[in-house]
């Protein structure tokens, strides 16, 4: 319910958060629910776990969109869920082909050894290629909503600053100095880089710079467009976390970063919340063990079993109490921002059935 309101009219839903919190699962669950409501939905995943990728019908290679066979897709005949995986290398190659002034120029860049290094799986490449792919898919007009799973950044800012970095990367004012070694600043920079990296590296870099000449405007325009899209009302950011201290601290950090950049925050999704077993304040827990043990004995459970089960209840309830405490603290920190909880399910989520269960929990909540 709360998510229906948050997602109303959005064309881009960005799921962000620390690694291991279930971002891909949540993105897939959002996508399947939105499709069940009758839209053309695409989930763009970044480096999904193989099992989950398989469940979404994604092949090992390539970045084409594939339709997902939803378990109960009968309700809305026109709703369709597609999934695609980001391939940073393919995206960058396409971008170069599109923006290069000629085919020969594109081929020169694609064959450059430094380009191969920059565009493959090195830190940062995933972030800005996720943005580029989002831009590409959004401008295709094929989807009503794109749900974007984000790379597990070591730093949330890497992701938010990706379009700017892409622009700076190809903006090339400094690059042009490299191309004119006659200039004083150019000569100095040239000799410095040469001393550190060696002459072949420098030659490759100069050739790459020459290749990018004439492409700056195209790159900059796309980066500006995607930044504008993310900042607009067409987009919402959902922060996915689990109710433990470290991932919550990262979610907090991301939330502040969104505010500082005036990007549209939709809500927090707290995944894998340990369910509670007894009511009342945690202060009343001291007698829980004895009480449970007595009740189990009364129900005919043998004493050793009752003792173990009572001990386990105390442990499980402690996990639930701690999660509750962390979520209450989160509510205090982020104020009115909606928080949606997904309970820890008894079995790991790695198939469409599990994804559907998470989806039901996401949308069944009135929200806090």
């Amino acid at each position: 319910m709360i998510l229906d309101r948050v997602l109303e009219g959005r064309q881009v839903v960005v799921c962000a958060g620390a690694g291991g919190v279930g971002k891909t699962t949540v993105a897939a669950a959002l996508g399947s629910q939105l499709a069940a409501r009758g839209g053309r939905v695409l989930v763009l995943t970044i480096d999904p776990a193989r099992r989950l990728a398989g469940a979404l019908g994604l092949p090992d290679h390539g970045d084409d969109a594939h339709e997902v066979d939803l378990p109960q897709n009968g309700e809305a005949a026109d709703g369709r869920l597609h999934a695609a995986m980001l391939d940073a290398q393919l995206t960058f190659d396409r971008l170069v082909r599109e923006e290069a002034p000629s085919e020969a120029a594109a081929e020169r860049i694609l064959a450059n050894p430094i380009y191969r290094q920059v565009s493959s799986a090195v830190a940062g490449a995933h972030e800005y290629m996720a943005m580029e792919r989002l831009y590409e898919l959004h401008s295709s007009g094929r989807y009503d909503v794109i749900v974007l799973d984000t790379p597990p950044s070591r730093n949330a800012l890497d992701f938010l600053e990706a379009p700017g970095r892409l622009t700076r990367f190809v903006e090339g004012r400094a690059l042009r100095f490299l191309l004119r070694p006659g200039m004083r600043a150019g000569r100095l920079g040239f000799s410095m880089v040469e001393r550190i990296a060696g002459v072949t590296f420098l030659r490759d870099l100069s050739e790459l710079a020459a290749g990018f000449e004439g492409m700056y405007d195209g790159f900059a325009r796309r980066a500006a467009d995607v930044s504008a899209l993310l900042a607009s009302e067409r987009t919402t950011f959902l922060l996915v976390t689990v109710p433990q201290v470290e991932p919550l601290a990262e979610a907090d950090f991301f939330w502040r970063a969104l505010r500082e950049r005036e990007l549209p925050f939709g809500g927090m999704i707290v995944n894998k919340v340990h369910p509670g077993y007894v009511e009342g304040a945690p202060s009343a827990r001291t007698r829980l063990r004895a009480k449970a043990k007595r009740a189990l004995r009364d129900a005919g459970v043998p004493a050793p079993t009752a003792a173990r089960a009572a001990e386990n209840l105390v442990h499980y309830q402690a996990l639930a109490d701690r999660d509750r405490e962390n979520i209450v603290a989160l509510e205090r920190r982020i104020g009115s921002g909606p928080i949606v909880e997904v309970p820890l399910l008894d079995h790991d989520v790695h198939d469409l059935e599990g994804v559907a269960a998470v989806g039901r929990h996401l949308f069944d909540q009135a929200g806090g």
Partner: protein
Amino acid sequence: MSGKGGVGKSTVAAALGMASAGLGRRTLLVEVASQERMSRLFDQRDPIGYHVTPVYPGLDALSVDPQKALEEYLLGQVKVRAVYERMFENRVFGYFAAAAPGLRELVTLGKIRQLLQAGRHDVVVVDAPATGHGLGFLNVPRTFARIARTGPVHGRAKAIAALLDDAQRTAVVLVTTPEELPVGETLEAIEELRGEGFPLAGVIANAVFEDIFDAGDADALAAVEARGAASAAAAAARSRLARTADQREQLERVRPCLAELPFLFEARLDVPAVATLGERLEGL
């Protein structure tokens, strides 16, 4: 040490560091992304930062700031501070640093190698980036040795790659939890590490639920229909039984493990709690 995000890699790295120190090896624990998890784990009043800081008897910690490691490396190369300062202000150089995105990883690994060579520590435990990122991290020196075909970067990258390739000096340890997706990612990483020829030591399974119930318990608890505390305890027991059964299945996919560490119900992962995990790692 690497592993999927969220499996407790930093905690296990800290536990391994404590175990190593407990055996009398002078141990250094290194985190690479300036996240300052170690300063929180070891209750440090201030961030550890880019200083070798004692955190536990026999154990030092360091949080590598790649920017500082890069500056330090360049200062060592250029020697004259004035030249080096001009270099940092130079935009061409700035472009070079941006165009070589693995450079930060390279200088981080270089710093680790340099610390080992300094001889103050017998063992360095590196809390590396998560798998995916982590294997890219290990590959950076090789890639650099390839693209910078000559010059100082080439030589340095080659020396770091040689250290990482050497099974006598380096051991890659993967941490996982016994769950479907982390175990799947671990198996993929094992395949990749073997393919690339990195010295894989094995897997540590973390957060393993102890099997406290037997089949008899399950039957006795299944019959409980009472309300209140008895049904709550039975429900919690059923949840645990389901989880331990799933975990057992997942553990089979990665066994034999170097170690299996128990799930900790403690309210806070403090030094004594991590030390109990460390005790389980002393045989490694």
